[in-house]
């Protein structure tokens, strides 16, 4: 169980609030240190003020094998500018002091393993981190980090994909439900992160398979890049993760307008958030 009053519980509460308002929870992603630390901090604050329910803070890694070109590039720029796991945790701490939105750290395993899972979880908790997504850490390998995170009241959030058979979805859901305050990250497609023109046709059938196997909220990510995608996700799931499209918007803007451009893209996507029909219809 999560330690009493754990930060992880704030994630479940954020999803419950969105559901209560009959809209899909909005989970924007910010790459820490991209294009620089100050801008990523301002962008995260701007997104929180614009209505983000949960903030995903990306930790750059040299070899991001689940990511497409957009996030690869952002991570490389952040690393070139000297971003480290430590500076990302410092950023999380500053954000925790400025906004109430629960923070979920998303990063690959090696920097965490290198620091040591216990030291990492301690630092993350002290920085106000509520949850972790580690895309190269399936439940089979997650034991040490899951125990360390749980001891510090942090939710470890697992991913399921359309290629996951029912039995694996059940296994992942069981691992995710061990503490019961997070969500299940549903990868919309077989592929890497990146903006796309349309969501896959089979999304509904996939989400129904997941829904049948967990009571946790479902958040859908990978390719969510238009308001109608957010609306479609809202009809099927509880949260929409948007990442590469926000980075694309930041990239396209002149240097002084980057934060505003990222927030504007988020607000545009958020117009798809209110539910116009009852949720859960697949």
């Amino acid at each position: 169980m999560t330690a009493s009053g754990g930060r992880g519980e704030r994630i479940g509460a954020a999803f419950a609030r969105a559901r209560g308002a009959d809209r899909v929870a909005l989970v924007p992603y910010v790459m820490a240190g991209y294009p620089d630390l100050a801008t990523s901090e301002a962008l995260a604050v701007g997104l929180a003020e614009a209505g983000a329910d949960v903030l995903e803070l990306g930790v750059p890694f040299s070899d991001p094998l689940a990511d497409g070109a957009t996030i690869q590039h952002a991570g490389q720029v952040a690393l070139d500018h000297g971003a480290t796991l430590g500076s990302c945790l410092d950023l999380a701490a500053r954000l925790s002091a400025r906004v109430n939105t629960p923070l979920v750290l998303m990063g690959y395993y090696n920097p965490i393993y290198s620091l040591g899972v216990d030291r990492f979880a301690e630092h993350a908790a002290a920085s106000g981190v509520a949850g972790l997504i580690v895309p190269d850490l399936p439940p089979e390998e997650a034991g040490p980090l899951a125990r360390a995170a749980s001891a510090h009241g942090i939710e470890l959030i697992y991913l399921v994909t359309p290629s996951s058979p029912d039995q694996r979805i059940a296994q992942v859901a069981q691992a995710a439900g061990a503490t019961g305050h997070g969500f299940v990250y549903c990868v919309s497609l077989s592929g890497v992160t990146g903006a796309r023109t349309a969501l896959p046709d089979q999304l509904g059938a996939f989400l129904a398979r997941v829904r049948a196997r967990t009571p946790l909220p479902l958040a859908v990510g990978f390719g969510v890049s238009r308001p109608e995608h957010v609306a479609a996700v809202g009809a099927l799931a509880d949260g929409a993760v948007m990442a590469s499209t926000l980075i694309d918007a930041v990239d396209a803007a002149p240097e002084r307008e980057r934060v505003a451009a990222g927030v504007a893209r988020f607000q545009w996507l958020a117009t798809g958030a209110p539910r116009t029909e009852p949720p859960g219809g697949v």
Partner: protein
Amino acid sequence: MAHDTETAPARPVYQHGAFPDARGRFGAFGGRFVPESLMAALDELEAAYTAARGDPAFAAELAEQERTFTGRPTPLYAAERLSRRVGARVFLKREDLAHTGAHKINNALGQGLLARRMGKPRIIAETGAGQHGVAAATVCAKLGLECVVYMGDEDIHRQSLNVFRMKLLGAEVRPVTGGSRTLKDAINEAIRDWVTNVASTHYLIGSAVGPHPYPRIVRDFQSVIGREARAQVLDTAGRLPDLVVACVGGGSNAIGMFHPFAGDPDVRLVGVEAGGRGIETAAHAATLVAGRPGVLHGALSYLLQNEDGQVVETHSLSAGLDYPGVGPEHSYLKDTGRAAYVAADDNAALRAFQVLSQEEGIIPALESAHAVAHVLALGERGELRPDDIVVINLSGRGDKDMNTVAGALGVTLD
């Protein structure tokens, strides 16, 4: 840190044949650190491989193709002038004489037959020096499979001849421009392709790296090297060798050579990594000599990384050794002390390349020259006895390296 004296466990004892275990671990190393998208595919691959391994028809077809297509068994050659030079009896296992010119064909053939058995019409592969790419393209041409090879932009320039060979064989070569533009980044890109096309595609990984069951599959298909060498040296010399030496990048030729000898406790096993410009500089690829445990490309193993856990760029004159990771079984062999790992730098490899060319009439791959360099160094240090039997795995031939070697020697080719 992994080696705090207060937390370091007692050195684990090598258990031959015990690993990988059900979790895909070799002792503490290995495992499956991959995106969820690939977990089902790895389960499918493991099940298919287990079934193939138990099927005498699969073994028979592999053996027949090894004999008639690859040209196995490759000879064990008594290198007389090299023996005189170093003061021991030196034998070369001639993987350079295998079809396509390197040991890579052993694994490519085995996995190609496995992919066909699994009904996967599309093969993806990564390549560094181009030898694995050529082997994969060759097997795909033979078996009628589509082949896409990912290759770092930097390596495409270093190995233009092999790029042309792959295209001639009908493969598509996709340049990788991310990161350090070498083998590491080619593997990243191949994994991204696999995540996207997992239903139709088999990832034919070229070294004993990656998530379980790859390190085991590659070891098994490469172990034909060590099985033959062991029988040949017993036949020729009447006893087991004292020392077996192989170069280590990802470590597939070395694990294929070492594994069949690892149960013979009196046979010393030494892996030779790329010392580049020297392991005291940052410009090397000596993972086991200078790295610490970490997670890259799906497995926990030794890794060259900075203090923050970011994987660092490596350097070696030989593209095939220019890799910051290493197969997890080598990490286990290192930590148990069953094998030792050393480094030979660019200059030593270049010199060994010339010595073997001029004194044995064999132009080795720059990768294999690292193994030769270590034996030359042992000879020069007087660490070999006249009746010592040394087997070097000559993992590939050096035709592909003419441009690199000419450049390093200051010769301009047209």
